[in-house]
């Protein structure tokens, strides 16, 4: 079926179009002007250097969160715990950033590695529970999210500050910010993290497609029985997949801690980056390049949305609705494929 060859790109594309369409219906029904709304969105994302800087900055953790979810998906696991892994990664990065005084060439990588390790550790638990006890990772990772939230808040209050609400600023030697970047984007919060996330995408691609480990991870993700028979250690690979996934998520947290905010503060709820990462991975077809493209889309949507209340009166949550709809449409790809085949038959 020829549809198959294009469906890899066509389906996400269609899902986005459908999502935006339904979004306009929601706006119309609620008494807003969709054209005004979407124009505000576009302007808010790309309208001037400041916005572009902010968009790129927003895209950065999305790429990494998307890579985390996509990597897990490719190996047959559903990592909904990116939110929590991101938080502990953020905490670890800031902790290292605040506690030491080292030359930048050591301090910065160290902080990022600490974040990766923290995220990896946080993901190790659901990984081992799944591998050894067959406990479904969905619930465990969701629980770990809440545990991470409360624990990081407690640590911020007790260790990183004196019963305060946020930590100190990380040392310059651990920061991803740069005056140069700030100057060319009209003082946005753009930082060098984007480079790290793009490197992350390359790493994921290389690991999965080119190495023997990647071969094993993919095989286990598709068929545990055949993998076991082929001599692969299924449990080890499951745990490894979660750990690598968690590492990506942790680095996403480092991006926020060392770049966007340069500190960590007590949170009343989740950042949402982890959940958006799920949408990014799904839309990107769980491939490295797809994740990058989807992250750019979602980053633009999120930043652009901030402009909507003031320019068009539309609440920012509209974008969350659109994102949810896109996920629905991607998940129901069978329907889209059906429509495409139907169209193809009639076109003949």
């Amino acid at each position, binding site marked *: 079926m020829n549809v198959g060859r294009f469906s890899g790109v066509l389906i996400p594309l269609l899902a986005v179009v459908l999502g935006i369409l339904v979004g306009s219906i929601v706006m119309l029904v609620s008494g807003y002007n969709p054209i005004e709304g979407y124009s505000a969105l576009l302007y808010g994302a790309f309208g001037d250097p400041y916005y572009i800087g902010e968009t790129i900055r927003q895209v950065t953790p999305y790429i990494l969160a998307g890579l985390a979810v996509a990597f897990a998906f490719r190996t047959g696991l559903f990592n909904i715990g990116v939110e929590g892994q991101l938080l502990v990664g953020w905490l670890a990065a800031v902790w290292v950033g605040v506690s030491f005084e080292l030359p930048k060439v050591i301090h910065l990588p160290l902080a990022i590695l600490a974040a990766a390790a923290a995220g990896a550790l946080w993901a190790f638990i659901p990984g081992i529970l799944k591998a050894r006890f067959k406990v479904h990772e969905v619930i465990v990772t969701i629980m770990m999210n809440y545990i991470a939230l409360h624990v990081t808040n407690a640590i911020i209050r007790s260790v990183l500050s004196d019963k305060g609400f946020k930590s100190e600023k990380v040392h310059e030697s651990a920061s991803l910010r740069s005056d140069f970047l700030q100057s060319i984007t009209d003082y946005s919060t753009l930082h060098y993290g984007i480079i790290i996330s793009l490197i992350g995408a390359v790493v994921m691609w290389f690991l999965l497609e080119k190495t023997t480990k990647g071969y094993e991870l993919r095989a286990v993700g598709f068929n545990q029985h055949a993998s076991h028979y*082929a001599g692969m250690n299924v449990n080890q690979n499951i745990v490894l997949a979660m750990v690598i996934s968690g590492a990506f998520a942790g680095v996403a947290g480092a991006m926020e801690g060392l770049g966007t905010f340069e500190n960590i503060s007590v949170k009343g709820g989740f950042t949402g980056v982890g959940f958006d990462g799920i949408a990014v991975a799904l839309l990107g077809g769980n491939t490295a390049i797809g994740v990058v493209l989807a992250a750019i889309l979602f980053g633009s949507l999120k930043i652009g949305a901030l402009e909507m209340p003031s320019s068009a009166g539309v609440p920012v949550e509209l974008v969350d609705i659109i994102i949810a709809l896109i996920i629905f449409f991607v998940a129901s790809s069978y329907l889209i494929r059906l429509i495409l085949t139907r169209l193809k038959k009639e076109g003949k």
Partner: protein
Amino acid sequence: MDYVIEMLNIRKEFGSFVANDNITLQVKKGEIHALLGENGAGKSTLMNVLFGLYQPEGGEIRVKGESVKITDPNVANDLGIGMVHQHFMLVDTFSVTENIILGSEPKKGGKIDIKKAEADVRALSEQYGLAVDPTAKISDISVGMQQRVEILKTLYRGAEILIFDEPTAVLTPQEIQELIQIMKALVNEGKSIILITHKLKEIMEVCDRVTVIRRGKGIGTLNVSDTNPTELAELMVGREVKFTTDKEEAKPTEPVLEIQNLVVKDARHINTVDGLNLTVRAGEIVGIAGVDGNGQSELIEAITGLRKAESGSIKLNGKELINLSPRKITETGVGHIPQDRHKHGLVLDFPIGENMVLQTYYQEPFSKNGILNFNQIYDKARKLIEEYDVRTPDEYTKARALSGGNQQKAIIGREVDRNPDLLIAAQPTRGLDVGAIEFIHKRLIEQRDQGKAVLLLSFELDEVMNVSDRIAVIYEGKIVAIVDSKETTEQELGLLMAGSKKKEAGVTS
């Protein structure tokens, strides 16, 4: 002519695939009518149309002379049509009674009147001589009883016409005889039976007429008394069929596989393999005959490292293999064509090329220092694809897209190419067409002639008798007899498989 069922010019399509191409089937009242065809010919599809699970694209169905539209199984039931499925449609966690009454539950107030239901089941079971335990859970009863439950399901709904879909696949020769008696009894009570099968001997024994289907088309209907197995086989396949494989005498040499006192436990801590002894020599094919459930699957799993063995010894060329990892066992020289090719043999969503290195990807030249060398991998894949006649658009096509026969050929190519000393073939021809079956049998004999040891596991007695040099009968986890394939008969094997001992003393290794 009193036809109780007429299916006239039935056409059934699945997308572009035509499963039934203008097939006509007419069944007389009170007869046992066989529907004969190879795997995939379209027999089950036709019966699913009759039973209301599928809707035909064309054609007409008449029941007792009246034209009907059977839109779902409820309608079929109302018309008196019942189906005894090949793969039992039973809910494991429900009781016998609950399975039988599902969908037609007797009610009292708002709840199910389970007492009445059980009484009804008992009465029905006595009337037709189908012994079942109404309160037992399906997961706890034997395969034979499960089949009787399937039959009772149809009788509970007052079926007049019963469709049996390949009912003998899971039975011993003795249980098959019992089933034949049951069918004759049902006919005596006025029922009509359609028997879907590809087993020629059963047709000759119990059926009145037979309709042959080949590749979706109806070939013809004959009286069984006017025909014979050879003619039926040729009609079924479309050309001359050889019932035996050409092969030279085996020239076995040293033992390659030596199993002693092997004990394997299952999930319920019962010994499924119970002190088993077996030897396979280089240059011979040993076939394992036995009814499913006597430990043969667990035996194979223990040899290949997929299952833990409790105790005993498995030696390959003198090296102890027991409880080593699958990878170590493979590296020592064992090749395995697994029983479930989709579960153990292939990663269906990988390209067929990547499947060819499933056990060797980590070795040179396919990878070095952890990085895969795709040139080498696909070179090897191309070579194997050509050598083993695997029909595929290219080596990048996903394994899922290949037909069963081609998937199996690919697996065989992969295993044989690794040059194992012992080749294990478990159900190697299940679900394949005659052409693929012939190819695979040839390859197994080829391996044997090249001095390999081959262990064949199959539930098709014909295959075991045809291909093997020696036959080891497994019963309740032990090898109870070893016979020469040329000197034994199906009757003898059937008796041994059901547990009766050979007249000569005990077990030979």
